[in-house]
């Protein structure tokens, strides 16, 4: 399966989805006016990956900012991962947040409580 690689912009994150390694990464800022358009290929890719996932998928989410329009799309991404997890595959989710960014930590906790896969909360200390 082809990897999905999208370079970041000031309003959209860097995306690296690698099926061979089983590594899913979203990093940077996600504040586009219309996030559905941006996230559709991510959700489609995961739908395909779900059919034949690695025994272990590692997910690294490291967002500096995201808007509420993105928050729904990010939940869609997590719901695909939840389905992979439910099908008895290991899914490790690492939620990175910058030092002191309680809002970002709390956002991770919100997702964790909705999708029911344990998150590893990782504080980035400069």
């Amino acid at each position, binding site marked *: 399966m082809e990897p999905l690689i999208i370079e970041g912009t*000031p309003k959209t994150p860097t995306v690296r989805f690698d099926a061979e390694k089983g590594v899913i990464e979203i990093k940077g800022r996600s*504040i586009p*006016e219309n996030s559905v358009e941006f996230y559709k290929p991510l959700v489609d890719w995961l739908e395909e990956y779900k059919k034949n996932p690695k025994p272990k998928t590692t997910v690294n989410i490291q967002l500096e900012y995201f808007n509420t329009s993105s928050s729904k799309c990010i939940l869609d991404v997590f719901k695909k991962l939840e389905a992979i997890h439910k099908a008895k595959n290991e899914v490790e989710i690492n939620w990175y947040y910058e*030092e002191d960014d309680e809002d970002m930590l709390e956002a991770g906790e919100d997702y964790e409580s909705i999708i029911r896969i344990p998150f590893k909360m990782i504080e980035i200390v400069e």
Partner: protein
Amino acid sequence: MNFSIEDYYADLIDGNVLLAYKGSINTELINNVLDTIESKLQDFNEPSKVRKKVYNVLVESLQNLFHHIDDLPDEYKDDFESRFGILVVSKEGNKYRISTGNFIRNDKIAYLKEKIDQINSSNREELKEMYKFILNHQKLSEKGGGGLGLVDIARKTGNKLKYTFVPFDDEYSFYNLDVFVDEVIEKKNS
């Protein structure tokens, strides 16, 4: 017509203003505003926590404007640009104030008022539950986050949303929303 945009705008920019704009709210404007405010906050040496809050809240405020502005009928088009809105970011004492203003159809006011009042009467825990409920249950409209924006702003700032609706004519009012971000942020969970 009692409502004067000029007077209203003059009142808003009376203070320590970081940025003031009136005109069409489009993507290019949003990008410019975000860049400008980000570098000003850097210049002020605000701690990253404060910078992030102001930036986050500004993103939501601007995108709310962008998605929800009602266009005025053609007879006003000489007076106002299309997608006309107002944005003022200022500093009042130890708070940042983000004011947005836009025309709104009178028939939408009751719903919006009820929504803001509900947010303002909720505590932190209730806002968290409200946010999670909307996130998990409401369909994303093409217009954006399905009403998450205001809840998110209230959660992040910990302050009440201050609004006014000034009647403009039979069909429209002018809606102003003031959002405050404290410069000194207290630890949550206390």
